[in-house]
């Protein structure tokens, strides 16, 4: 019997690596080289005008980064943006998912509707919101004036405080569907018998949610949050199209892009990109440790 077990384990191990190989090969190809190259360039003074003429400068780029207030500003902006937008998206996404999990008339329509924001190319939707946020001919001010929320049109995109709020509002609009859909998929894979038992025992729905649904949903929820957080920490296109290189809303990725592309400073920009990677890695480790995802004993 024990012998059969080891034989089986060995067979399973073999097939594990067999199954993993195609993915590893593809990832090594598309990610391995570009990432290694970026990290290597971060230790040089490479310039886009002539990439070949580069010299090793050690940690100099990182030293400069550490002392650049604009970099720290962008780190703060990104973290603030991430924490606020991901929190709102999680709560809202959870609510939407729970609603869509119910049976009601027009559910299909609503499910298609919530995907629309996610489906419009960011390049376009960010521009569209720019248009809608305009202080003189934008529809948002128009509605606010009409409803009586304000007597003066707001300069959404110009005011340093409001512009961050505007960016977050658009990001919530755009990515809540992603969250809602992932959570919904998680909800639908939950075993139904727990609910039956809870219902028979007469447990209040709210209690059921916190005691039964949420714990069961945790793995799916965590994965959704992790990927949203990773995406938010790398936030680039939405903010870039809406606000450009403005310091009030500049994220880490926009900072890196400005150095890499606008300023042609490939070495320094690569260092910034590598730091973005490291900051995100730290975030992820904290998340995963706190959430207990990926622990060995679970499988």
């Amino acid at each position, binding site marked *: 019997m024990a012998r059969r077990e080891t034989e089986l384990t060995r067979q399973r191990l073999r097939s594990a690596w067999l199954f993993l190989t195609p993915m590893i090969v593809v990832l090594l190809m598309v990610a391995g080289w570009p990432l290694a190259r970026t990290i290597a360039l971060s230790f040089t003074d490479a310039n886009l005008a*002539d990439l070949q003429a580069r010299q090793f400068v050690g940690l100099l780029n990182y030293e400069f980064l550490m002392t650049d207030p604009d970099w720290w500003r962008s780190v703060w902006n990104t973290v603030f943006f991430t924490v606020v937008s991901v929190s709102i998206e999680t709560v809202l996404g959870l609510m939407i998912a729970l609603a869509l999990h119910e049976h009601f008339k027009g559910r299909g329509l609503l499910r298609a509707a919530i995907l629309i924001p996610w489906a419009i190319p960011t390049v376009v939707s960010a521009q569209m919101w720019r248009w809608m946020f305009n*202080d*003189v*001919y934008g529809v948002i001010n128009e509605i606010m004036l009409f409803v009586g929320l304000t007597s003066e049109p707001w*300069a*959404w995109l*110009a005011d340093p405080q409001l512009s961050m709020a505007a960016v977050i509002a658009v990001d919530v609009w755009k990515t809540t569907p992603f969250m809602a859909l992932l959570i919904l998929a998680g909800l639908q894979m939950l075993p139904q018998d727990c609910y039956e038992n809870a219902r028979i025992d007469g447990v209040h729905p709210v209690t059921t949610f916190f005691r039964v649904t949420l714990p069961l949903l945790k793995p799916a929820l965590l994965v959704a949050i992790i990927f949203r957080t990773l995406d938010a920490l790398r936030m680039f296109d939405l903010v870039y199209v809406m606000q450009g290189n*403005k310091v009030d809303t500049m994220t880490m990725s926009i900072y890196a892009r400005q150095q890499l*592309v*606008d300023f042609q400073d490939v070495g320094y920009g690569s260092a910034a990109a590598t730091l973005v990677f490291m900051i995100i890695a730290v975030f992820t480790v904290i998340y995963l440790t706190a959430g207990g995802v990926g622990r060995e004993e679970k499988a």
Partner: protein
Amino acid sequence: MRSDRNVLVLGAICGATLTLCGHGSPTAAQELAISCGAVGQELALCQEGVAAWSEQSGVPVTVVSTPNSSSERLALYQQILASGSGDIDVYQVDVIWPGILGTHFVDLGADFDEEVMSAYFPSLVQNNTVNGELKMIPWFTDVGLLYYRADLLEQYGHEPPTTWEELTAAAEEIQAAERAAGNSRMQGLVFQGNAYEGLTCNALEWVYSYGGGTIVDEAGEVTINNPEAVAALDEAAGWIGTISPQGVLAYQEEEARGVFQAGHSVFMRNWPYAWALANADDSPVKDKVGVVALPKGGADGQRTGVLGGWNLAVSKYSDMQEEAVELVAYLTSYEEQKRRAIEGAYNPTITALYEDPQVLDANPFFGELYDTFVNAVARPSSVTGTRYNQVSTEFWNAVHATLNGTVTAEQSLAQLERRLDRLARNW
């Protein structure tokens, strides 16, 4: 059953691959590729010009369209050029890029000697010369202008302003009177105040018109921290919240045009393109708009406008440099520029075209533009070389902060000087 279907789908995809992807270096052997314009009238005009040359020379040419946004376009060019790729032979290049992309372009000085180039605006030729090498040939140009509501100025008894102070006074008066008359959205002046290259153009016009120089002078010295520049920025900062809405600090060209064209502003700073649109049949301000050179700063100032526009350059990595140069010569010639001016209102870079009767017939306001082009000021892009974008970013950030009221003009220019001095070691 299920896996059968997957196989079918895969098969269909592979079939599609053959027809869809094919393979394709865009430039087969003995074919030129030129990048000009984004999809629209600009591209169509370019295609016509290229087709005419192609027929005449027998060399096939592909036209590659690139993004409308100039920063996207620059990023794409950099990527292609930095890899030493010859996929594009002729590039359409912004006036501020000679320093940034110059190392990738051939010196055209031998093919376009001084005599040929003397027909073009000298400021453009100078702008396109980096370290004595002529990197690109001016194709069409742009300059900052002041648009005004002729009907409103007449109604309130004002002449088009010649100084910024006059403009401010007229704008205040008309804005207050119009708002009192029920036009609650009326603004005095709109311009490009977003933190981007457009603000550098606007602010340089203010600073230069007050005699405050060009941020960095021709010798590469940082000159921005001077009393005239402070006065210019103080004046501009005073507009925000009075004659200009706070929202102007997020405006680019189209937002400014939107407000002006809907009839919500007395004055607007913009490029020549807005003229045709403001006078289009569906425009609420049709026939109510005038255009004039931007005001000067105080009595001793100078009227000016910032130079914009596009040039053609030939890639070092091109396999067909000779033909590419010929194509550039054709497209920038008197005749071709004349065609583009008549059909598309593109401002020529050859001075004589501003006296050509047919061109003036098609674009009556070109005559007034001529003086502005002669007096136009170029951004310090050649002297700062690859660092221009950094200089411009520092400048617009400093100006944006001043307009926002976060810092005073004096503080922000002093700080800007320190930051630019540090950069100056590298140009």
